[in-house]
């Protein structure tokens, strides 16, 4: 399953790129599992996803919770808590 990942703010800075297409291995079923798997992909990812509980996620541009399944997702974004307004 290929998914477009997008990163914003300090998650983007730590990963070192704004987006990428990745092949998600079988067995990675939820947003939380995806973060755990991403953290194992290298030093920059380990740094970005060291505290997954502070990272927010969106699937296809809607906020989702960590336990949300990623099946069928086209685009998944990871970012810190929002500070707009």
């Amino acid at each position: 399953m290929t998914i477009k990942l997008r990163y914003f703010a300090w998650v983007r800075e730590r990963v070192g790129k704004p987006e990428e297409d990745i092949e998600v291995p079988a067995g990675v079923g939820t947003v939380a599992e995806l973060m755990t798997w991403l953290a194992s992909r290298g030093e920059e990812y380990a740094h970005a996803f060291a505290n997954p509980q502070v990272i927010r996620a969106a699937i296809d541009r809607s906020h989702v919770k960590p336990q949300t399944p990623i099946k069928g997702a086209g685009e998944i974004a990871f970012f810190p808590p929002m500070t707009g307004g």
Partner: protein
Amino acid sequence: MTALSTVRLQREPFDAAAEAAKFTRGRSDIGALVTFNGICRGDEAGEPIAALTLEHYPGMAEAEIERHVAEALARWPLMGVTVIHRYGRIVPGEDIVLVVTASSHRAAAFAAAEFLMDYLKTRAPFWKQVEKAGEKTWVEAKATDDAAAGRWSGRQAAE
């Protein structure tokens, strides 16, 4: 009643007075117009800042604001809502965000404007970076903003 709604994201400054005046031009049924401007302050934690840079998630930011505008229109008897949010580099004294709500009476206009601002702070995908003494740091989310947004859950709409 069909309410007019506008949601815009832009790099350029906006004219808050002109945006607000659009609602009342040529009509006299609007009795309450609330305009909220969020402005870039010149200090952060007691220290002067050079600028803020706002990053956003194009596509999702518009969609998220539209969802909350739709919710505000469903909860309060509004005749119009405008939300304009800037992104990019903004220096102290410049506007960051504009919320305008129009209604027959003030309760709905005040409540809807506060509701929209509380949600913009905590749900709209924008991130502020502050430039201070040559250093750039990301602004941390405030628990008080989450609490402010939380108070709208389950609350009845104002009359």
